[in-house]
């Protein structure tokens, strides 16, 4: 019982002060500069939940996925899995990789074109010492689980499958180690809408049946809202807003979250969008604006916003936003006075 409670309180995954800079233009004669893809990110993923990460291209969401998977080294910061530092004596990288698996957007590029579906799924476990026979048996179980009849699909090659079927294979392969955490990086974005719905339903079924935890990265707010318990909105390598999905996407606090939601095409032909919520493209993460990174595109920006960077401020239970408006007494004309804090 006490162990159960503890595992509930400890986040499954904990990311602290994560920073990733990619050097660019470095040469013999110039020091070069850096793409600040992820620039100080903190978040937890609780056991059994789905954390959605949304943001535009270049906001660093895929870099976060790759950092968490240890597909690349961090510039700074810490990644803890079940409160253990990955790569330490408590948790080797090899062991960590068995518990955390990833599904990518490009279902075709993710599979070896010369391996049959069953070999692809069985490959990982064999590397980790499982016999071929056991691994293949497990592969057949997993194929059935993701809705692909093993007798029909096990011997097929990736090019003989549709996009949706291939993505099911990728999901089956990710499950071959009985992982605790799945990182889904735009995993349904390349699929047609009718197939996307099937795969989303499959992900929900698998999560329930196997007690999985998801980090679901996507640019599609509708999809994120559907599948996530909590949502993290990223802007230029930092957290703009974080909280329960219904709060963040239902009553967004950060002007960027509001703009993202308002940019989604309407389904009402009588009330079409008349004004674009934001002008211009997302800025370049090489030279992020000073102060609040969103201030050059923000309709509420004041001089304060370019001078000082807002920290994440709690708004309601588990809901926080990095905006001066949300910080009582920040000095922003729309912020409440400090005393009023309820």
């Amino acid at each position, binding site marked *: 019982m006490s162990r159960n409670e503890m595992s509930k309180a400890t986040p499954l995954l904990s990311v602290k002060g994560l920073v990733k800079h990619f050097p660019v233009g470095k040469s013999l004669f110039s020091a070069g500069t850096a793409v600040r893809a992820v620039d100080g990110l903190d978040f937890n993923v609780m056991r059994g939940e789905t954390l959605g990460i949304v943001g*535009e*291209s270049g906001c660093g969401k895929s870099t976060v996925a790759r950092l968490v998977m240890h597909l690349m080294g961090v510039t700074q910061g810490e990644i803890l899995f079940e409160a253990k530092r990955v790569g330490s004596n408590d948790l080797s990288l090899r062991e960590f990789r068995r518990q955390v698996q990833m599904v990518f957007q490009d279902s075709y590029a993710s599979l070896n074109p010369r391996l049959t579906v069953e070999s692809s799924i069985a490959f990982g476990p064999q590397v980790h010492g499982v016999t071929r026979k056991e691994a293949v048996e497990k592969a057949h179980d997993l194929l059935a689980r993701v809705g692909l009849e093993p007798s029909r699909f096990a011997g097929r090659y990736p090019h003989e499958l549709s996009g949706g079927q291939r993505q099911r294979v990728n999901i089956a392969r990710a499950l071959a180690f009985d992982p605790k955490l799945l990182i889904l990086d735009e995993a349904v974005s390349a699929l047609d809408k009718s197939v996307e*719905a099937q795969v989303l339903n499959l992900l929900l079924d698998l999560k329930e049946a196997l007690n999985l935890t998801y980090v679901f990265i996507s640019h599609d707010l509708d999809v994120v*809202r559907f599948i996530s318990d909590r949502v993290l909105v990223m802007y230029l390598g930092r957290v703009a807003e974080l909280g329960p*999905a219904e709060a963040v996407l239902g009553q967004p606090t950060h002007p960027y979250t509001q703009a993202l939601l308002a940019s989604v095409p309407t389904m009402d032909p009588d009330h079409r969008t008349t004004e674009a*919520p934001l*002008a*211009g*493209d997302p800025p370049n993460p090489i030279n992020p604006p000073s102060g609040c990174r969103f201030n050059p595109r923000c309709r509420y920006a004041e001089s304060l916003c370019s001078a000082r960077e807002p920290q994440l401020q709690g708004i309601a239970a588990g809901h926080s936003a990095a905006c001066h408006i949300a910080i009582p007494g920040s000095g922003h004309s729309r912020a409440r006075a400090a005393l009023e804090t309820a």
Partner: protein
Amino acid sequence: MTMTMEKAPVATASDQMVRVRNLRVGFRTSHGVVQAVNGVDLDLARGETLAILGESGSGKSVTMRALIRLNPEHVTSVAGDIRVAGEDVSALDAVALQDFRGLVASMIFQDPGLALDPVYRVGDQIAETVVRHKGLSRAEGRKKALELFERVRIPSPERRLDAYPHELSGGMRQRAMIALALSCDPQLLLADEPTTALDATVQIQILLLLRELQRDLGLSIIFVTHDIGVAVEVADRIAVMYAGRIVETGPSAALIRNPRHPYTIGLLSTRQHGGKLAGHRLPAIPGSPPDLAHLPPGCAFAPRCTFAESRCTVIDPDAVIIDAGHSARCLRTDATAGAMAGR
């Protein structure tokens, strides 16, 4: 009006921009003929915006490319009657086709990186097009390019004329491509998923720009997309394609509120309407789209259709008129009425 317009046959009404009858497009491949478009009728009035909505492989892009004969001719067989601005597109010779593309109809694509030449400055590419098609001088061409850049709202247009495509952001490249497409004052703009690769906040800007250009220049637009929301934002009318056929077409509002083809109903139902209930699942369309090299007999959607009866796998349904301008190719339109109400 251009020369081509004056010789337009009187057979088509002058307010009609596009008239396509029984278009069939097949591609010869090593696996046999892939029948990408399977009897499409299409009408577009002047100044109207039509969205063709469909999933990958539905034939939406192939249909649009056929309007300016952009499908690779040596492997493509095209049958049917295609008229754009009164012109019989299949009858154009090589020279006439070159003038037709650009002056009558022009096209923008999903990836401006492929449509713009990477080794020329964007301003020069536009100027060259104008010089070639309109017979203007180089300086006039440059002036026209600047005008167009202002028109499509590229910030600091003068400076951006001298930029190479890779120096522009994604949204700006898309604007530059729109400027290039409009450089010869076409009457018809064909847009093939022009916002699909863009971020949401940029996509809505481009959609609004296209709507504004349509209004100000009186353009006719055909907009191909897989996103219903995008179609609603830009189009007056929507045509839904499945397996090479238009299965339902109608005014945007009618199609969204009263969809009658089971495929349209399915597409609208799979949209995630916010709030998740515990244990809630999306109403997904089962199965996957058919193989275009081996289309099933009867209605191509029947194998995935929850309304299908045995006759659906035998009879290829004709269009059933639902309302003015709204029709669906389905044998069971009586059963699909009000199907969205319960969703």
